[in-house]
């Protein structure tokens, strides 16, 4: 019997945690009940990118896009949409102005403005079905390269201008060439899937949604450099990615895409999974190699670079997940096609994970050179609750913050470097007016201080000292000399730390000092937090003219710091108050205010 409807359910990590599995099980139950299970095909796909709308379902042939689904909604969709042909209006996407978009996937700017290369199959194919990958030209690139010489393959990748998507942006073709030229009886390909930046989930989504494209990319790299063995280093916190990679590897074996004599040629290649324990430093390539070898994950001195002496002391190419996922498309469509997108020195597209204070949090892929404004406002839908944009943090703990006046900067490796931050792996954390920039710097430094492996002194001790100074400042105990101390420490750590983690750890502090020095000074000189976010420097008070005595705040207060009778003005006892903000959240009359604590003292 022919399949008449296909339902794509997004089974990316975000949708799964939003309840995708129970929606799917109700859906399948209902389909069985109405004997539709033979004509309706349900496919779980990888992340569609619109994570804030999850769980998501797209019903074809019409392409109707249902969002924010609960299990009982699946029942309604079967009874109304599938059985009676009526679209369920209340489950369609509604724009900010209330307009309904039944085919959100084709119509929304969030989807329309994207150019998908690395994420081409996400939300389109079933990641556990190799034939769907083949249907979308999967493994055709592998066949194509096996009819070329390795040098021709490297030349093609060099011509495409592809640069490493993991952060540093080293030209991929060049890396392959160096490894090819290193003489050795054995070489290795490693896929770096140790994604660890807070708020970044590009690589996880690609692994979960299109594992075969990463495998194919690794094999092409292997053929180009002369390797027969590959490792995928993936963190244990990504169980779904590990599961789907495992399925993909065994399917690829079955079809003869992995193993001996691939496509009947002399080329043999195999891939093994290495599960990491989730240490941030293991994303650094030399530490990663140590960990692959079963040793403690600590970086070692470079040079020698992995291209000369990598895993098991053999020449090794290490590429990031997204880099590898781009490779098959470059081979299939050609280097010129890829190089036609992007800016002069950054070609192709980049996947970004939009997070923080942004309406359309999720995964997007756009051509290099797209401006921050387009990314955040046109595609990302802007800042929620009518707040003002303050800054965007790129590059995770190794990156920095970009203020509003640079919103029209085209995003590529070099422009971000000029602004004092880095492209990084593609995490973008958007901040609004309520975010304290000193606290942001402190947050990221806390992260790197915790994740420092401790091998070299500048990173182990230096980040800790910087953190102590920042703690002092946000508590209102800072002095002006602290800013100079921070700058000296930052510069010293940058110059002397052993690996990338330490060398980039001061970036969040340096970039916030560059653009938001006034906020540091306000904390130190005036003992005020301009964003009213640092607990030690603010206080909550109740405006007697606005308070109606509804008692909502008094009931919400966990420490009984609010006194007052019904229908009479309430008051906060500052000595008992722990500044949790519960009263501020629950007051419907805007009577609870955040003020600078210093004003209360002087009054």
């Amino acid at each position, binding site marked *: *019997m022919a399949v008449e409807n296909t339902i794509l359910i997004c089974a990316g990590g975000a949708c799964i945690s939003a309840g995708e599995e129970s929606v799917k099980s109700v859906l399948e139950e209902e389909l069985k009940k109405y004997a539709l299970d033979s004509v309706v095909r349900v496919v779980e796909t990888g992340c569609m990118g619109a994570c804030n709308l999850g769980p998501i379902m797209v019903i074809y042939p019409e392409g109707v896009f249902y969002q924010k689904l609960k299990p009982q909604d699946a029942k309604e969709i079967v009874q109304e949409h599938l059985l009676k042909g009526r679209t369920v209006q209340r489950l369609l996407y509604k724009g900010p102005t209330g307009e309904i978009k039944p085919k959100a996937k084709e119509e929304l700017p969030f989807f329309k403005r994207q150019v998908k290369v690395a994420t081409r199959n996400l939300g389109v194919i079933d990641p556990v079905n190799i034939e769907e990958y083949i*249907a979308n030209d999967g493994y055709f690139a592998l066949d194509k390269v096996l009819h070329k010489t390795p040098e021709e393959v490297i030349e093609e990748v060099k011509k495409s201008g592809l640069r490493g998507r993991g952060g540093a942006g080293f030209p991929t073709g060049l890396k392959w060439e160096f490894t090819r030229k290193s003489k050795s009886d054995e070489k290795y390909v490693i896929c770096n899937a140790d994604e660890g930046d807070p708020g970044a989930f590009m690589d996880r989504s690609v692994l979960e949604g299109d594992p075969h494209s990463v495998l194919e990319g690794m094999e092409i790299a292997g053929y180009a450099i002369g390797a027969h063995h590959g490792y995928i280093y993936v963190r244990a916190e990504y169980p779904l990615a590990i599961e789907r990679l495992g399925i993909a590897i065994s399917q690829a074996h079955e*079809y003869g895409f992995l193993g001996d004599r691939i496509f009947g040629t002399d080329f043999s290649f195999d891939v093994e999974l290495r599960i990491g324990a989730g240490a941030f430093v293991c994303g650094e390539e030399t530490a990663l190699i140590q960990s692959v070898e079963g040793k403690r994950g600590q970086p070692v001195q470079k040079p020698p670079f992995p291209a000369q002496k990598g895993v098991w002391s053999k020449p090794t190419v290490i590429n990031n997940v997204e880099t590898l996922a781009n490779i098959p498309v470059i081979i299939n469509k050609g280097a010129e096609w890829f190089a036609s997108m992007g800016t002069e020195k950054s070609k192709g597209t980049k996947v970004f994970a939009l997070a923080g204070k942004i309406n359309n949090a999720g995964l997007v892929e756009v051509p290099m050179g797209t401006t921050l404004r387009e990314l955040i406002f046109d595609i990302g839908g802007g800042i929620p609750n009518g707040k003002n944009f303050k800054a965007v943090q790129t590059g995770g703990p190794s990156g920095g913050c970009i203020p509003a006046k640079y919103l029209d900067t085209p995003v590529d490796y070099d422009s971000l470097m000029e602004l004092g931050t880095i492209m990084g792996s593609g995490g973008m954390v958007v901040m609004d007016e309520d975010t304290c920039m000193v606290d942001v710097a402190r947050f990221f430094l806390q992260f790197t201080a915790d994740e420092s492996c401790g091998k070299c002194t500048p990173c182990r001790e230096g980040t800790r000292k910087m953190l102590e100074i920042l703690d002092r400042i946000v508590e209102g105990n800072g002095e002006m000399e602290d800013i100079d101390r921070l700058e000296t420490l930052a510069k010293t750590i940058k110059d002397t730390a052993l690996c990338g983690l330490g060398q980039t750890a001061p970036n969040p502090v340096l970039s916030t000092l560059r653009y938001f020095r006034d906020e540091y000074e306000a904390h130190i000189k005036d003992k005020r937090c301009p964003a009213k976010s640092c607990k030690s420097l603010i206080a909550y008070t109740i405006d007697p003219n606005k308070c109606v005595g509804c008692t909502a705040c008094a009931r919400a207060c966990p420490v009984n710091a609010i006194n007052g009778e019904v229908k009479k003005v309430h008051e906060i006892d500052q000595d008992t108050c722990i500044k949790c903000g519960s009263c501020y959240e629950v007051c419907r009359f805007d009577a609870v205010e955040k003020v600078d604590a210093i004003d209360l003292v002087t009054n």
Partner: protein
Amino acid sequence: MKIKSLEELQKIKEKALKEISGRETKKRGRIVVGMGTCGISAGAKDTLRALADELEKQSIDDIAVIQSGCMGLCEVEPTVEVQIGSEEPAIYGHVNEEQARRIVREHVMKGKILSDILVKRGKV
């Protein structure tokens, strides 16, 4: 099975593409089967299966078979509405398995309206 050549890979691609083509919106026309309670009790499920089966047998993949609710013609159920391209839809009544196959072979393939089972032309 191990794939040894581009031809074999191409074959799998074509087969898989056929499987997922149901997601494409580019269809030449559609057949709507009334699947309200009235339709189902009159045998619409068999009609639907016969339609889908016959389309597959004739290798027709550009016609969507859609299920809908009761269109208000309960006494002539199972009802089937056929619309090809921009022409006026034709509504057939009392469509059993045999008539369903006729609809595919005559109307869908040759463009002939089956006047003996036609209930109405135009939108309901």
